[in-house]
């Protein structure tokens, strides 16, 4: 059996109900905060109330005498811990490491300054209020362009500038393209800073056993093995004596793939205090100090022919990095990833981009579903809408004229991405058909006569997925990949699948069990998937960037295939037929064409473990295999169309519906694919209309509660229609492509596009997201006065 095409029988591709669900539905599932160990003490962090200030002194004496307080740690108490810095070697990126506790200066509101340890979180918060920090407030800078100005306040004085990266890249003949243009268009878009806001905040629990020197570290993390490695290095504990357990994780979306200062401090506190030390982040901390995302200032310039052909594109992407680049080149991830995907699904050969990363007095940036791509997609799609309007073309038609046609696959973009396959044009046409596009345009014209403003927004996208080493490089980052699965059949015939990818809602215990069950010919009930505990799962990268279906699915398929062959070999000796003449179905190994000559999986496995007859000379008898998989680059695609109505008096937007056509290649479980798409769309709606991390000029964070930081609820998300196209990848095992991010990559452009389409009669211009009612009303007013 080749694994280019996976078998699709009872399990693979079916809408299998998730095996993990009952424990969540009954409240039995244990997340970090739910883990109770005897003797646990609790941490509250003292955090900066200033966006930019010098720390003159810290007085912890009063706090230390408060009831129930064990210790108060400041930077002076953790000198053994190195500052956190990006481990990714990206040429030209200035390092801006973050101390685990601020020492001389604070650079954003929420930066941790001291850790108070007490018998309860209540007491720890009481004592944290008594830590006296003497600050000298400094002028802050919260706008990336202002931060680039020579007289702006500087965050990292040793650099002499806030610009930590600046590079221009020219691809193709950009000057030629602009020389041939009939028209040149420009647009600027400042995308909003918004955040993953997983319903479960961050948290960790450090348990150190002094006698053995073992550290067990529970963390709500997406990357348990990476965390283990770095904790071992930071704390000087040998890696084999560190165990990281990621219990149930209540959502991550990228925010929990970072190793955070708080984690390192709490791990250390556990080691030095000799008691289990627990920190459960509260929502205010999460909004202020967990990584923010997605803010860029993007300027685009396009060389266009009158027929709508885009000849060339220039882009300037300024990433607002926040205060530090403490994880995976974090200052740069937004603009660099955005620059790489700017051409998107369109055939653009001449392209120039300037990528700039700038430090500001805001929380550091990190990964959040479709890093960099959301901003780039939003800027480009809104720009293309505008170009279409200016040229008098339908926005769908402009896209048709520029989209990469199917016969061009594999298609190499000017930025070096190799699109393996896809349904770019087909997804556009199908989405338009589903939404009833022509009829909508008629309706739009009618309603305008009545003073009602309907809008339709189209966002056609390609999504890099399967974050292995190849696609990481194509996307611009030398990010490593190392993942493997171990599939084992126990003597009783039951299957254990241990994987290095991590589930925090994605349902791997179901989808990866489906893969193993299909290949091994057993029921999914006989398969258990283990992940998240470094003592039980093999070393690997964890889950981020839509990698787990492809990488997890692929490595499980490879390992299960090898185990299947072992089962067949063992059974062939027991049944005295050649392995090729055997098949497995429903847990029974049988002779093809003679199903009465059969053995149960139990019988074969039992014999394989305990009956010497099944063992051949020189052959490993173990019914287990460990397989590594680092896939080739593969790209998903789709089209999201939004229909809305705008109240032009109030600026309120009513979403009528969102239609998504997506293509993630071979689907392991369509139900889970749909769940991924719908959840990401809702986040995209949040990003387009509601969510924004707002700072005032002094660096004060204005949105540190869910009263001010607005997540969409069930009344803001309209009915969603999802339809699948399925073009299997020619380069991955089983043709699987990832699905995690497309919804958030593409929805903000679709929603904002719909709003701007509704406002088209007014020539309203918007340069900032989200589209709050006030911004919409303001845009309408300024268009009136033009």
């Amino acid at each position: 059996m080749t694994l280019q095409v996976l078998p699709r029988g009872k399990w693979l591709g079916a809408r299998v109900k998730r095996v993990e669900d009952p424990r969540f539905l009954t409240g039995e599932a244990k997340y970090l905060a739910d883990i109770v160990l005897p003797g646990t003490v609790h941490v509250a962090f003292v955090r900066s109330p200033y966006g930019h200030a010098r720390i003159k002194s810290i007085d912890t004496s009063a706090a230390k005498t408060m009831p129930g307080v064990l210790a108060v740690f400041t930077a002076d108490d953790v000198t053994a811990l190195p500052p956190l810095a990006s481990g990714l070697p990206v040429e030209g990126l200035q390092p801006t490491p973050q101390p685990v506790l601020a020492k001389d200066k604070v650079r954003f509101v929420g930066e941790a300054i001291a850790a108070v340890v007490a018998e309860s979180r209540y007491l720890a918060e009481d004592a944290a209020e008594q830590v006296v920090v003497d600050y000298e407030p400094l002028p802050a800078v919260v706008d990336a362009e202002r931060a680039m100005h020579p007289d702006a306040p500087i965050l990292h004085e040793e650099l002499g500038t806030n610009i930590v990266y600046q590079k221009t890249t020219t691809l193709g003949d950009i000057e030629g393209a602009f020389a041939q243009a009939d028209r040149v268009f420009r647009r600027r878009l400042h995308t909003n800073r918004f955040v993953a806001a997983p319903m479960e905040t961050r948290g960790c629990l450090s348990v150190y056993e002094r006698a053995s020197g073992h550290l067990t570290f529970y963390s709500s993390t997406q990357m348990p093995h990476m965390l283990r490695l770095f904790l071992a290095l930071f704390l000087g504990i040998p890696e084999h004596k560190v165990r990281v357990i990621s219990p149930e994780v209540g959502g991550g979306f990228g925010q929990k793939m970072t190793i955070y200062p708080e984690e390192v401090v709490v791990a250390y506190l556990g080691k030095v205090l000799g008691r289990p030390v627990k920190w459960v982040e509260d929502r205010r901390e999460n909004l202020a100090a967990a990584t923010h995302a997605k803010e860029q200032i993007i300027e685009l310039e396009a060389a266009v022919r009158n027929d709508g052909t885009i000849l060339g594109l220039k882009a300037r992407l300024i990433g607002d990095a926040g205060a530090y680049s403490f994880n995976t080149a974090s200052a740069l991830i937004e603009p660099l990833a955005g620059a790489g995907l700017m051409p998107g699904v369109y055939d653009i050969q001449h392209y120039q981009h300037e990528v700039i990363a700038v430090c500001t007095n805001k929380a550091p940036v990190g990964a959040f579903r479709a890093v960099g791509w959301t901003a780039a997609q939003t800027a480009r799609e809104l720009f293309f809408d505008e170009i279409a309007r200016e040229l008098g073309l339908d926005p769908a038609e402009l896209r048709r004229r520029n989209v990469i046609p199917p016969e061009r696959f594999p298609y190499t973009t000017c930025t070096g991405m190799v699109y393996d396959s896809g349904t770019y044009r087909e997804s556009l046409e199908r989405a338009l058909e589903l939404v009833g596009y022509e009829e909508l345009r008629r309706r739009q014209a009618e309603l305008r006569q009545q003073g009602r403003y309907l809008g339709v927004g189209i966002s056609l996208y390609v999504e890099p997925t399967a974050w292995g080493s190849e696609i990481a490089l194509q996307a611009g980052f030398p990010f490593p990949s190392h993942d493997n699965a171990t599939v084992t059949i126990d003597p009783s015939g039951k299957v254990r699948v241990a994987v290095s990818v991590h589930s925090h809602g994605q349902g791997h215990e179901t989808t990866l069990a489906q893969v193993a069950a299909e290949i091994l010919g057993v029921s999914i009930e006989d398969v258990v998937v283990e992940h998240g505990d470094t003592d039980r799962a093999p070393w690997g990268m964890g889950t981020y960037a839509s990698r787990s279906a492809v990488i997890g699915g692929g490595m499980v398929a490879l390992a299960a295939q090898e185990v299947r062959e072992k089962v067949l070999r063992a059974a062939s000796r027991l049944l005295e037929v050649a392995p090729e003449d055997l098949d497995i179905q429903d847990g029974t190994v049988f002779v093809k064409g003679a199903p009465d000559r059969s053995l149960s999986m139990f019988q074969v496995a039992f014999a394989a473990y305990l009956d010497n007859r099944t063992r051949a000379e020189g052959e490993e008898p173990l019914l287990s295999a460990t397989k590594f998989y680092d896939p080739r680059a593969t790209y998903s695609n789709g089209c999201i169309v939004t229909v809305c109505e705008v109240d032009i008096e109030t600026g309120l937007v009513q979403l009528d519906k969102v239609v998504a056509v997506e293509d993630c290649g071979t689907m392991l479980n369509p139900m889970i694919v749909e769940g991924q798409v719908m959840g990401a769309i809702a986040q995209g709606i949040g990003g387009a209309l509601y969510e924004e991390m707002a700072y005032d000029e002094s660096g004060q964070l204005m949105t540190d509660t869910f009263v001010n930081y607005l997540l969409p609820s069930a009344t803001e998300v309209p009915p969603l229609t999802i339809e699948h196209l399925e073009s299997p990848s020619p380069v991955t095992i089983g043709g699987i492509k990832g699905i995690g991010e497309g919804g958030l990559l593409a929805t903000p452009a679709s929603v904002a596009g719909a709003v701007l389409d509704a406002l088209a009669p007014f020539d309203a211009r918007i340069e900032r997201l989200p589209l709050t009612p006030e911004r919409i009303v303001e845009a309408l007013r300024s268009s009136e006065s033009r």
Partner: protein
Amino acid sequence: MATVPITLTVNGQAVRAEVEPRVTLADFLRDELGLTGTKLGCEHGVCGACTVLVDGAAVRSCLILAVQAEGADVLTIEGLAGDGLHPVQEAFWEHHGLQCGFCTPGMVLTAYALLQERPSPSEEEIREALAGNLCRCTGYQNIVVAVRAAAEKLAGAR
């Protein structure tokens, strides 16, 4: 601060305890009774993850002090079904109404309270009833579908 004695019923069991006045009902359920199915998502009354039923009404347990629950009858997710699953839980399972599971106990209890009051809600009524419970994974659609399916299940069982 002096502790206060309280007597209440939780999931059908009588509970007596001494609590500090400032302890929220959510923390009391989680830390004192070990009922960690009640989740804390924001602790300021917006996200709904801590929703429980008090005297039959869905409320946010982070916005009630344990001392206020004197004499109350509290139902948490752990008490919704005996063995197995309640029809609302079954419907969430069948219709993929959960992903990370963190908002799920609050969602399920909110849906249960809605269906107690309004056995056959419209989609709009379902969405309004759920609007005080945030979910970051599902986009709500499958939750709405699940609540409608649960309504049908419960109607069929009557």
